[in-house]
């Protein structure tokens, strides 16, 4: 095997690799691309019989139309208010629970992790009905507060586990030293734990924002009047008004997508890297 032959083979392989990469990108971006093309299409024109790769002319006013047809500003505001309360609350309560779990004796921690994992295994479908009846009895029907309530438990056991892993990476001696200095558990959580868990805060923050912004089934069950509707519920209203006006439906869909995708793109580097490193930390 000569050196140059090896090199050209390697170059051939890396060329193939790039081709596959581009193919993967195309496949995963195509649905979104088609959404954009359709969202910018003129509404009055008959729908296309052959594939269209570019909207001509591009009608940016379709987005304004969405706001005229439904109270989209209200829906977006509701979702934003819910997320802006629930996301910080999620970070606080999930990190508190994760921190406590990291500090408790081993046998308690094992049990708490087991309970958390078990709770992650419960399909949400199975708790729709009892939860609905519970919220109804508690007088939380048609109140936006109902959608924020899960943040008081850290939203998901998964978020608590992410924090547990993050806090477990800090050497035990660091915590012990602070304790000898007379710092209480809350002081150690705020002063030593959280600054060490910035990546976890970012990850949970992104995931929690995606969760609350995207949430559809819970508001579908609990919210009754359209002034309480969230972005996704509002999008369903838009769809039910005229289910064949595809440019407007796609424009509305894009409007609900843009905030999550923006947050994701801004945070994806830290987010993807952090989740990737997670299992190494456990081990």
């Amino acid at each position: 095997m000569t050196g140059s032959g090896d090199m050209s083979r390697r170059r051939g392989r890396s060329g193939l690799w790039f081709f596959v990469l581009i193919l993967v990108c195309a496949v995963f971006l195509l649905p979104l691309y088609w959404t954009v093309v359709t969202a910018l299409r003129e509404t009055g024109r008959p729908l296309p019989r052959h594939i269209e790769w570019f909207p001509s002319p591009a009608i940016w006013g379709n987005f304004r139309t969405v706001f005229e047809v439904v109270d989209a500003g209200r829906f977006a505001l509701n979702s934003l208010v819910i997320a802006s309360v629930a996301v910080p609350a999620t970070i606080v309560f999930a990190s508190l629970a994760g921190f406590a779990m990291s500090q408790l004796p081993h046998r308690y921690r094992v049990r708490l992790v087991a309970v958390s994992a078990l709770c992650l295994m419960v399909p949400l479908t199975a708790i729709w009905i009892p939860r609905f009846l519970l919220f109804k009895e508690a007088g939380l029907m048609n109140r936006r507060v109902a959608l924020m309530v899960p943040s008081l438990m850290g939203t998901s056991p998964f978020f608590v586990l992410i924090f547990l892993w993050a806090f477990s990476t800090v050497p035990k001696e660091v915590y012990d030293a602070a304790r000898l200095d007379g710092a209480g558990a809350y002081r150690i959580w705020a002063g030593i734990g959280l600054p060490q868990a910035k990546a976890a805060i970012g990850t949970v923050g992104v995931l929690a924002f995606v969760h609350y912004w995207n949430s559809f089934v819970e508001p579908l069950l609990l919210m009754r009047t359209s002034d309480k509707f969230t972005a996704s519920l509002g999008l369903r209203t838009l769809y039910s008004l005229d289910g064949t006006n595809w440019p407007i439906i796609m424009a509305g869909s894009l409007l609900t997508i843009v905030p999550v995708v923006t947050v994701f793109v801004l945070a994806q580097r830290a987010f993807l890297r952090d989740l990737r490193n997670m299992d190494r930390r456990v081990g």
Partner: protein
Amino acid sequence: MTLARWWQRNSQRVALNSMLLPYLIGLALLVIGPGLAGFALSLTDYNAIQSPSWARLENFRRLPHDQIFRIAVFNSLLYIVLAVPLRLIGALALAKLLQRPRRSSMVVRAIVYLPTVIPDLAWALIWLWILNPLYGPLNQLLELVGIDGLAWMVDPSTARIGIVLMMVWQLGEGFIVCLAALGSVDPDLPDQAAIDGGGTWSTFRGIILPTIAPVLLILVFRDTIFSFQANFVPALILGKGGGPDYATMYLPMYIYTTAFGYLRFGYAASMTVAMYAITGIILLLQYRLTHRWHDGFGRHE
């Protein structure tokens, strides 16, 4: 005095417990409690207007004779058989492809994860448009390469495929887990195998796959359970409530219709209990199956 001393000794512990309290109360009230309440509710007739009346096992006796329930169980199982392996293989293949932490693969990783963060409702509407048999871009793309388009959500058999298809794109979670699992494989192991003369595929099959098998099994478990909630919005939007001809009437869709459409909460709760049982059986089967598969590997070596 004694109280003060007790506090001095236990203040740390009390503070830690108080940190855990919101989480544990939340789990009890919002997850464990409702999970168990479903069992009690399944033994009643309840329409959320009048107070519940005791029905004993009447709901469960009715279930096997309910045509739609049987269809829903069949559809749910079919969905799991199709979607879970496809999503796993896709996630694993993409993770293997993008395993090396190059700059370009970091960008592609983000793109692969992107569909997963899109709101379920928007994603369902997008696919309702993509799968439109006449005007949808997918059929038009197929036409471009000379393939006749499918009827998708108009025909029961293609409707099932359509729902599975749209869920394959949202495999980001599994993808991340596979990346983490591959990253945790000792890098010397595959190198050793390469020296021993193994090809890429045989190294992957013989060394990497058995090493990450436990993670993959958990992923299969999770995806199976997740499938009992994930196909609700697609069935609601693309299937317009379980259609065409009940082809997308999955268990979550039927539970939702029974409870919140017909206000038969007790009967719907009995379906969730059946759903627990079905999930349990599937998980057991998957566990036994992979165990045998894993043993097979052991004997091979």
